[in-house]
């Protein structure tokens, strides 16, 4: 029963991928391979499509695998399964947290975790930027991508510079739209 398999597989992904989309890639690869749904090449393609389309990465990968294995129903089942744990955990946490949050030890732990998450997010941003501009050191694709560096400078100047002109500057959504346009201009339409 493919739908049940999809549900169980992506419930596992939703339950065991801590730290968001990029971290879940190896887990999804492993699970999809173990069920024999796709070969390695197809998985790589699926991940690339999921990265270059809108939506949370993990959800996109679930929809893609589900859809390729079980059509629209498969896509629904896989997407639902990957989302379910996060959804339930937050409902549970927010209804319990109110009482929990004033606990001294919980506050102490939280005070150590808040600066931690900031460091993690900053590291992720720096890492992605370096990877885009200079390639990955390990995969041997290193070498400066001049176009990417130019794009980063232009987009960074537009995004942060706009705040000097207007109070809140341009919105993140507008930046995404501009960046897509800049990509087409720089790398070509056809």
């Amino acid at each position: 029963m493919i739908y049940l398999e999809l549900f169980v597989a992506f419930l596992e992904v939703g339950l065991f991928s801590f730290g968001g989309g990029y971290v879940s890639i190896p887990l999804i690869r492993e699970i999809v391979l173990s069920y024999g749904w796709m070969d390695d090449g197809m998985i790589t393609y699926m991940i690339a499509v999921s990265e270059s389309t809108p939506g949370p990465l993990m959800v996109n990968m679930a929809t893609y695998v589900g859809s390729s294995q079980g059509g629209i129903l498969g896509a629904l089942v896989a997407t639902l399964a990957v989302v379910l744990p996060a959804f339930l955990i937050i409902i549970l946490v927010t209804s319990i947290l109110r009482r929990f949050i004033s606990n001294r030890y919980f506050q102490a732990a939280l005070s150590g975790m808040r600066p931690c998450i900031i460091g993690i997010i900053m590291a992720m941003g720096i890492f992605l930027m370096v990877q885009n501009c200079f390639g990955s050191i390990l995969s041997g694709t290193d070498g400066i991508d001049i176009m990417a560096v130019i794009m980063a400078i232009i987009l960074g100047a537009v995004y942060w510079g706009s705040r000097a002109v207007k109070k809140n500057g341009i919105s993140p959504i507008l930046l995404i739209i501009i960046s897509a346009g800049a990509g087409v201009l720089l790398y070509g339409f056809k």
Partner: protein
Amino acid sequence: MKKLLSLFFVFFKIGLFTFGGGYAMLALIEDICVEKRKWITHEEMMDITVIAESTPGPIAINLATYVGYKLRKLPGALIATLGMIIPSFCIIFLISQFLDRFLEIKWVSSAFQGIKIAVAILIIDAAVKMIRKMKKNPFRITIMIAALISMLVINMLALHVSSLVIMFAGAAAGLIFYAIHGRCRKEPAVK
């Protein structure tokens, strides 16, 4: 009802412009839900991000569920989460069923070259905003820099270490600091 509708459309919009992992979406949440609509505070967003990082599942879903639940309980949580998922669901479904060579379309891959850069900028920007709003003391700054360096090393060397390890270390450091100093100022957290 009106609130439910605007919840749906706001998260529909966020879902449509979220690329990559959930971190880039933090900039969108900060812009729309914190600054423009004032549905949640910056501190709430921080705490939910901490919880999202230490619990499984997509961070984007954690945040959508939280904002929806805060405004309109269970129906709100469902509507916000659905709004977040529907755009990408439709797009991925259509691509996987009908577009075999999606990535070979030149303008798609060109646009994505640009979007990749924007995503990195948005993540850095989200972190910069968090640093600005952080109540700074030597303890917090040390932890932040330690987490930054460890995460960079993990990423650069492609080590199979979950960020969860760093989060646990942070929690432990918080508890030890509290045990030594015997005090912990209360900060506004999830209301």
